């Protein structure tokens, strides 16, 4: 398939190879992260006037789903501030590759590998989402907890164990980065084969070996391999969307679970934040109350039983229709690829609805980040409550339809015959229709 190697352009190569551009972005995001925590702790309790709420849950969360992932895969991970303090300590410096630094450097326990914990973390965000998304101080405590956790883990475990196995956003981003248009690969496999040192693997904070990379799910696009390869054998490709999805890539059972958790979360978030059900909103908000436990129960039931039930059912039907011998476990893992475009497009459609309505809060909170009545750039008190326009409704329909088309295409590509793909396509159709109903009503 067509690839465009960015490292062929000298200017692009120097931007990617030089540590400074990335470092400066990381330093800014780290300072911004700390400012966000302070704003959440000390700023206005009114969410729409607090930088922490608007920048984390409106600006960043929207940008992640509408820009970073669709146009850059895990590009956010390459400038994410959360692992930085720990990683700098691990490396023993800021501008140097992995080496002799600080920390116990233990391996992450085998039993806890995969994206199970990330999926669990994402569910937790969903269960407490209504409070976290509206309370600046809770947001600040969550951010503080995450950065401290990442720091502590980096002192105990090797590399980016937190990002690889715990970070819920890492799980989300990694899953959908498979559909993203950026990849790091080796230029010439022969060169790597004859190179005994594996400098790239040693330098990789993510523990990846570029020669073996088939999927971009666990590559954080940090460019360390590019910087240390003595043979200039690493390339950064722009590629067609969805390149990791196909019959040749390997997938695991936990990816299916992660994909289903994301689908369930998209449905529940749409129902809670965009649906007309006031009681559902207050149930999701009143954490610890009986209605909240009912909400949590229904949410978990959807994530653990309903969606997996439909999914397993579809996969079982596919196996029935398939002439080749394949176990259920293998099938469940293989078809997880179908969930990637389906979920990505559902999240984009969900995001569009609130981004259109809420983006007007961004300039006012830059003008008055703590909600203390400042007017730094003259935009305070200019927020208007946006409306879901007919344009955004149309866009949502188009995006959900594109998601259904795309996931069906993946289903066809990985199935022996078109007939075998039909149950999965039906699953995608039911999900897309439910999502459409929740978003547009």
């Amino acid at each position, binding site marked *: 398939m067509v690839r465009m190697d960015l490292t062929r352009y000298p200017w692009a190569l120097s931007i990617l190879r030089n540590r400074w551009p990335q*470092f*400066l972005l990381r*330093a*800014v995001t*780290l*300072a*911004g992260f*700390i*400012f966000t925590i*302070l*704003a959440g702790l*000390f*700023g*206005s*309790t*009114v969410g*729409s*006037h*607090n930088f922490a709420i608007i920048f984390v849950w409106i600006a960043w969360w929207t940008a992640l789903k509408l820009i970073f992932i669709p146009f850059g895969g895990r590009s956010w991970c390459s400038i994410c501030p959360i692992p930085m303090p720990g990683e700098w300590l691990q490396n023993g*410096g*800021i*501008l*140097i590759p992995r080496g002799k630094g600080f920390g116990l450097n233990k391996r992450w326990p085998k039993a806890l590998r995969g994206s199970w914990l990330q999926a669990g973390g994402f569910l937790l965000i969903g269960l407490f989402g209504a409070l976290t998304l509206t309370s600046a101080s809770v947001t600040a405590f969550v951010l503080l907890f995450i950065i401290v956790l990442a720091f502590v883990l980096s002192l105990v475990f090797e590399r980016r164990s937190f990002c690889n196995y715990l970070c819920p956003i890492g799980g989300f981003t990694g899953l959908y980065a498979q559909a993203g248009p950026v990849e790091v690969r080796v230029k010439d496999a022969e060169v790597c084969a004859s190179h005994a040192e594996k400098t790239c693997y040693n330098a990789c904070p993510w523990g990846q070996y570029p020669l073996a990379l088939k999927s971009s799910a666990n590559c954080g696009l940090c460019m360390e391999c590019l910087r240390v390869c003595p043979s200039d054998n690493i390339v950064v490709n722009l590629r067609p969307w969805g390149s990791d999805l196909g019959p040749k890539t390997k997938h695991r059972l936990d990816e299916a679970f992660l994909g289903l958790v994301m689908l369930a979360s998209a449905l529940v978030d749409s129902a809670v934040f965009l649906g007309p059900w006031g009681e559902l909103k207050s149930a999701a908000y009143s954490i610890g109350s009986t209605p909240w436990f009912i909400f949590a129960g229904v949410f978990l039931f959807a994530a653990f039983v309903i969606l997996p039930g439909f999914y397993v059912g579809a996969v079982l039907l596919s196996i029935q229709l398939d002439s080749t011998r394949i176990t259920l476990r293998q099938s469940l893992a293989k078809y997880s690829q179908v969930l990637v475009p389906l979920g990505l497009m559902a999240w984009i459609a969900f995001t569009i609805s609130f981004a259109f309505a809420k983006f007007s809060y961004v300039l006012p909170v830059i003008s008055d*980040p*703590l*909600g*203390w*009545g*400042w007017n730094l750039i003259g935009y305070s*008190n200019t927020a208007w409550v946006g409306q879901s326009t007919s344009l955004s409704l149309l866009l949502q329909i188009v995006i959900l339809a594109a998601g259904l088309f795309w996931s069906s295409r993946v289903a066809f590509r990985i199935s022996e015959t078109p007939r075998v793909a039909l149950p999965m396509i039906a699953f995608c159709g039911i999900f897309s229709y439910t999502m459409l109903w929740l978003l547009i009503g």
Partner: protein
Amino acid sequence: MKKEFLARFLVILFILIAVAIPFAGQWLFSRNKTDIIELHARMPENGGWSIDQIDAEVNEPIHLRMTSDDVVHGIAIGKSDLPGVDIFPGEFVETTFVFDRPGQYTFYCTRWCGPNHWRMRGTIDVSGEGRPLQPEPQPLFVTLDIDIDSPPIAETVPTEQVSAERGANFASLLPTYAIDRTTYLSTSPAVLWMRLRAESALSNLSDQDIWDAVAWIWQGQTTPANLENGQRLYAENCAACHGETGKGDGVMARNNPVWDPGNHNMDKSSDSFTGEGFVRPRDFSDPKNLLGTSSALLEGKIIRGGMGTGMPYWGPIFTSQQIEDLISYLFTFAWDATSEANLD
């Protein structure tokens, strides 16, 4: 190595800037505002007014910079003509109050922010030279020793629609005490009706004629302007519990149990915040309730509030005239259709 140090320096610099923005900003913005009081409005459940007592001097302006931490609130000064101000969540609004007479003033929330809205009150103690605020005279219910916690039920009520207009025809027949203001203030319509019914001079009149006459007397004690004022005050301050039509079905109280004199117990304190023990207000549109009630009793209830029922006390908020206007308006619920004519 130089680059590494530069990088470390930049990290620390950026973090310091991030930390400095809130603190330096707060210092910069508050530098020239030392005489400004920052007042945060919050629902009572969230803590109420951030400051509930302010000391001031006569004729010295009190500059307030206010914001709401939750929902829309408002601020006004009880018994004062100073204009009220709305306070929106996350936005800042400034206002200045100046008092030319020493005394204790009450500031209060003017927006129905929640079931405990009326608890959002604070005081401003103004000291200095000047004619102090006059203490209110003893309310009539105290002088008359009326038990305002057990309002009587009218024994007799009109069977037909009363008409103050028809009642005007009997004006010349009425004894002097009937049109005396003291009678209006201290007597319920039902009691006055019974007294008039016992008058031999009025024996030719039907029961309904006498009700019409009483309605006419009540109408004569107020003016359309006062009624209009009473209606406005009622809509702003009372309707949330008592309901727009006086039925006691306002949005804040419609789920409370119906008032029952048998259950009323002064010693049993109600839970102010949860509203446990609160009752649904009595139905003003049921003539049995208001026609058995005197103006003095209603005045007492408004000034002091209804112990343990959830009814707030309005003594520090309303002027005597405002209370009088409110009472006139309340009686129109009982006179029903007659009231519509009065208001037109």
